[in-house]
Each structure stands twice: as structure tokens, then as C-alpha cells.
């Protein structure tokens, strides 16, 4: 049986404000999905809710992986069950070396039954694998000794996210604007890397505004989010259309969702300005 993530009628809110309004989505291992939509449509929220971010409250609907309801599961349990979320803006953890963190994470994810305090995967095996993966991603081995995301450039952060995905080997991976803030070369590299490590082995949900990331990862399905729900699903050609023509047709076709989206985006902007 292929590994399947099923999202049914998902509603969620943050601090009393509703963001997702009934999302339905199924992602199977081996499939590539593109998730697109204007700012404020709820794309990142969907990714974070799937991963179990404590800030968001699921008010209705379910998320299941292979039939197991994730509602009461903590983020680490979801990771051990095979989910991965590549952050749009990864947070820095000063003083924690990327390699140390990754050894811990890989051990836990590969051995979900591991109890705290039990041995980590052997250093020798881990090093060998990390070195190989870093070579594959054309990363300088020195990188593993740096502190997690601390002082990383935008490109370095995104590649570190892809490296983590490579090491954790999830069943389903959500990539949240892994292309944002990168120049064309970096996007191409990231796109290739995702294809090399992800395609066929994982189910990919690629959240993106641009088509570069999809070059090496052509989606079988493209979903358009607007105002907190998926309003349209198509194939690769839908992604192409949105890249060339934008969201005007979508907004006109779903005026209620477009209005919700306008309000959500305005709130998001106001919140961003307040910070």
C-alpha cells in the first residue's frame, strides 16, 4: 500500500481568526503536487498545520497518514510517522551544530520506538551517510559543523532544509516556498536536488509562486488555494497558466473566496507591519 496523506474538510484558526476553511487534499508517495495561490491564501498555514504547529487550532476536519488520525500527535510523532515540512523561514538554533542535530533527528525518525537516552545511530555510519548526501547536494562538508541556520544565507538555509529532507527520508514532504529568496542558479540547484532525493521516493507537496522549482519536479497535480480553501485542481498545465496569467481568472471565478483572501492578506500585512 502506498503511503497516503489525506486531508478532509480541514478548518483551522489562529488566535480566533479563521484561516483554513475546508481544505481537501490527498497526497500519495511517489506523487508530486504543486500548491499555488496568492499571498494570504493559507498555503503556509496548511503546511504548518499538517506538521502540528501548536499555534494553529484545528476546529474541524481531519488529517490522516495511512489512515492514522494525526490530530492528537505531537510534531515529533508526525515526523516519526514520515512527515516532513521544509520551512520557508527556518529559525536559527545558536550553539547547536547541524550535524549533531541531524544525527539525533535521523536516529529518532528511523527508529520511532527509540526511548530517550538510548544510543544514537553509530557516528561512523551517520558521518558516512551525511558526507555522501552533502556531496550529492554539492555542499561543503564544513557546513555540517555550523550552528543550525545561524548566520546562514537564504540559499544556505534552503539547502540545509533539503539536506534534512534527504537525511530523514520522509514519506510525504511539504516544501514551503523553498525557492523564495533564491537567485536563478540557486533555485535550479534546489530544484535538481529535490528531484534527485525526492521524486519517486516521496510524496511531494511543493508550495511555490514560481515555476522554476517545478522544472525538475513537474507536478501531476496543481492545486490553487484562495481564501483558505482549494478552489481548483488541475494538472501541470494549471501551474503553467497561473505562471503566465496570474490569479485574475481564479479571483473572478470565486469571488467569495477572493474577498476572504483579500481580508486575510490585509490582516497578514498589518500584522507584519506591527512587528
Amino acid at each position: 500500500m502506498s503511503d497516503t496523506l489525506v486531508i478532509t474538510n480541514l478548518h483551522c484558526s489562529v488566535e480566533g481568526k479563521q484561516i483554513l476553511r475546508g481544505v481537501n487534499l490527498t497526497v500519495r508517495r511517489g506523487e508530486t503536487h504543486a500548491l499555488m495561490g496568492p499571498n494570504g491564501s493559507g498555503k503556509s498555514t496548511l503546511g504548518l498545520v499538517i506538521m502540528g504547529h501548536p499555534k494553529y487550532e484545528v476546529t474541524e476536519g481531519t488529517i490522516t497518514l495511512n489512515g492514522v488520525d494525526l490530530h492528537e500527535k505531537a510534531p515529533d510523532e508526525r515526523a516519526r510517522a514520515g512527515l516532513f515540512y521544509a520551512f520557508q523561514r527556518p529559525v536559527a538554533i545558536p550553539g547547536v551544530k547541524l550535524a549533531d542535530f541531524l544525527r539525533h533527528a535521523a536516529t529518532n525518525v528511523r527508529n520511532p520506538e527509540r526511548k530517550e537516552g538510548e544510543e544514537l545511530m553509530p557516528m561512523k555510519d551517520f558521518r558516512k551517510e551525511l558526507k555522501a548526501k552533502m556531496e550529492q547536494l554539492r555542499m561543503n562538508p564544513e557546513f555540517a559543523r555550523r550552528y543550525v541556520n545561524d548566520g546562514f544565507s537564504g540559499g544556505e538555509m534552503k539547502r540545509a532544509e533539503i539536506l534534512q529532507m534527504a537525511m530523514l527520508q520522509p514519506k510525504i514532504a511539504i516544501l514551503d516556498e523553498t525557492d523564495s529568496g533564491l537567485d536563478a542558479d540557486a533555485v535550479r540547484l534546489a530544484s535538481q536536488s529535490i528531484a534527485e532525493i525526492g521524486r519517486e521516493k516521496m510524496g511531494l507537496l511543493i508550495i511555490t509562486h514560481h515555476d522554476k522549482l517545478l522544472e525538475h519536479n513537474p507536478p501531476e497535480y496543481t492545486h490553487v488555494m484562495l481564501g483558505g480553501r482549494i478552489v481548483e485542481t488541475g494538472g501541470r498545465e494549471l501551474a503553467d497558466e497561473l505562471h503566465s496569467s496570474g490569479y485574475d481568472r481564479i479571483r473572478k471565478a470565486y469571488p467569495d473566496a477572493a474577498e476572504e483572501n483579500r481580508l486575510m492578506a490585509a490582516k497578514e500585512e498589518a500584522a507584519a507591519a506591527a512587528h
Partner: protein
Amino acid sequence: MTTETTTPILDADPIGEINKYDFQTVSKPVFKARKGIDAEIVHQISDMKNEPDWMREFRLKSLDIFFEKPMPKWGGDVALDFQDIYYYLKPTNGQGRTWDEVPQEIKDTFEKLGIPEAERKFLSGVKAQFESEVIYGSLKQDLSDKGVIFTDTDTAVREHPELLRKYFGTIIPPQDNKFAALNSAVWSGGSFIYVPKGLKIDFPLQAYFRINAENMGQFERTLIIVDEGASIHYVEGCTAPMYSSESLHSAVVEISVQKGARCRYTTIQNWANNIYNLVTKRAMAYADATMEWIDGNLGSHLTMKYPAVYMMEPGARGEILSIAFAGKHQHQDAGAKLVHCAPNTTGQIISKSISKNGGRSSYRGLVRVEKGATNVKTNVVCDALILDDKSRSDTYPYLEIAEQDVSIGHEASVSRIGEEQLFYLTSRGLTEAEASAMIVNGFIEPLVKELPMEYAVEMNRLIQMQMEGSVG
């Protein structure tokens, strides 16, 4: 909470508790003074040590000062009954010179602390203090051949009186504060180090101290003289077992770093939760000399400790790296003092504190620039990490600047253990407890990476112990 002395320590949560180590060793003191402090006790101590008159007089004078001085206003609340403390214990007859001569019960304690192993692997010179007395010491022959003196301070009074008298009580006089006066009156043990001109010792010299008697005050007295152009790294570690009534630890550490010399003093202190840890540490740094304090504080009921560097001549540099971990029923009032007494002097303070389970940490720091000390540069960075809603952190920076041409930087940040950091790490499969421990270990990394390997491992182990079961 700092005034609570009736805390049921044995019911306290695992933080900072050393009882996991099961340190408590039954020791039979050869001599134990009665409780309390007065001239008779001071005479007794001096008699036991067979001290010269000048030291006896110094003690008695200091005792008068102690009685006169009010409790210090700088720092936390000290609720101590000075008459309910034992001021002197003598654990063995005479001093052990070789490992074979060290009593078995004391060896057992060292075993639990991992000292013999640490020594074999790492140490070149060891001073270990048990109770008030140095009972074991070894110093590489070639060091003493080069003129290095590394001994306990009691021995130094007998064997190096001229050198000792020149500095003893001059960097921290008994008049300095009530606890310095107390230490001056009843001190015993501690280390005396002299590094001769131009000699650079490239491995750390180490010592261990601990308290092992109920209601016992420990008053070690350390004096380090680093002569011109010499350099040394001295490492002192402290741990203590659990006891149910308060104990007092009040050390005095004086350091003279002379022209062009360098001294680094590293300590990680992990006291039982009922101990008042009130320590005065000060270094004088002369022309182009560098003094570095690396100071880690865990455990204790109240710690008040502000290692100081007085930069006395141009080109002197003072650096202080201080880390405190405050758990339940604990107040870490830690910080640093930098005093610029001469032009072209530079300093740096990095202070990090972690508060957990209702613990309280305070950064209390002084930067003073005296008149005439121009072109002075000092930077203060203090970061506090708070692990839960019950805990507290405060920052009390004092700046006393008497000159215009100075550059003083102060950055302070207080963060709760970041929800975003926790989510990031847990989304990669780490449990919340593992993630918290990782964040805390990362937070103290600047200290840990400065430590010799043995201590870095111990520090990480201590933090691990303190974090266990802490998040839920």
C-alpha cells in the same frame, strides 16, 4: 523566595540536585570546632594551623570588621544565622602527599566525582581539597623546578611567607565586604600559585573543592600571582552533596596579573540546593596583561558572585564569561565587574543565564571607568533564557563612567525558550524534552567550548540532568 531557608530540599525537583550522584560520604573529622563564630574560634583555627602571629592578627582584625559590616546591599537576600554554622573542620591528620596516603572514604568520593581518572588522563598538577584542608596534591616536578609554586594556602603561609604577605589581602582587603571579612577571619585551604616571570604553562592546573559536612562553612582562600610575561590557566571545580540545612560557602580569590602576563581562571560550581554561595573574586591586571574569568554556576540556594577585573595600567584587558542555571528554590545572582583605572584598557562581559522551574537568575554587572581612563572600550552582552512561566530573570547593569572618551556597549536579551525553535526541532523528530535540552546546550555552548574536555563533558552532563523531565 530568597529568604526561605526552610525549603524542604529533599522534596525539591531534580534540578541542581546532586543526590543523583550519591556523593555523601561518611567522613570522620579529626577536629571539629563548635558552632558559631567569635574570637575563641578564630584562635582555635590559628592554633590548629600553628600560624605565625601576623596571620592570627589579620584574622582577629578581620573578625572585628566582619561584626561591624552590614550585610551587602549588592545582590540577593541573605538569610543566614552566622552562629549556626561550623567554621572549621580538619578531616585528616596532616596532608596526603601521594595517592596511597589518601584515606579510602575520600578516595571513594573522588571516584564518584571522576577525579582519579580525570587526573590520569588530563591533569598535570592537581590540588584537591576535602573539607577545609588540602589533603592531596601533586605537581609535576618540572614545574616546581621552573620556580612555579602550586600549593595550598595554609602551606604557603608557612613556606612562602614573604611572597604571600606581599599580596594576601591586598587585592580584596577584609574591609571590602562582610563576606570577605568573614573569610579573612576563618579561612582555611584554597590554592596558592605563583608563576615566575616569563613562564608560560600550556596546560591547565586544576583543583577540586567540595563541602561534605552539614552546617559547615567553607572558606577557602586562593591567591594567584602571575609574574611579568607569564601565563597560566587555572581550573577549579566544585560540587557538593545534598543536605537539609543551610551551609555557607564564602571564598575569596585574589589574582595579580602582572605586566604582559595572562591568567585564565575557569570554574564550574555545582552546589547543593541549600548552600549560600557568596564569593568574592577579583583580579588586578597591569600593563598589557589579560585576565579572563570563566565562571559557571549551578545549584545553591543563593549564589552571589561577580568576578571582577581591575585594569590598573594601560593596555590591560579583562574578559568575563559567566553562565548561571537557576532551578527551583534557587537564585543565581551572578554577573561581573570591570573597572577601568587606566587609559587604553579593554573589557568584555558575556553573561548567560537559564531559569527553570521557578528559578530566578539575575545579571548584576558593573562597568566603571575612572577619571583619567581615556580610550577605554568595553562590551557587555547578556542573554537570559527562561524555560517556563514560573521562572524569572532580571538584569541590573551598573555603569559608572567618569570619562568622555569611552566606548561602552551593552546588549541584553531575554528570551523564552522559543516556540518556533521548539517546533523546528520537534518537527524533525526530536521530543520536546530533547529539543529543549538541545536549545539549552546550544545556549551555553560559548562557555562549554572554552572548557577543558573533562569539564565540557561534565557541564553537558549536568545540564542534561537538570533538563531531564523538565518539560511537560
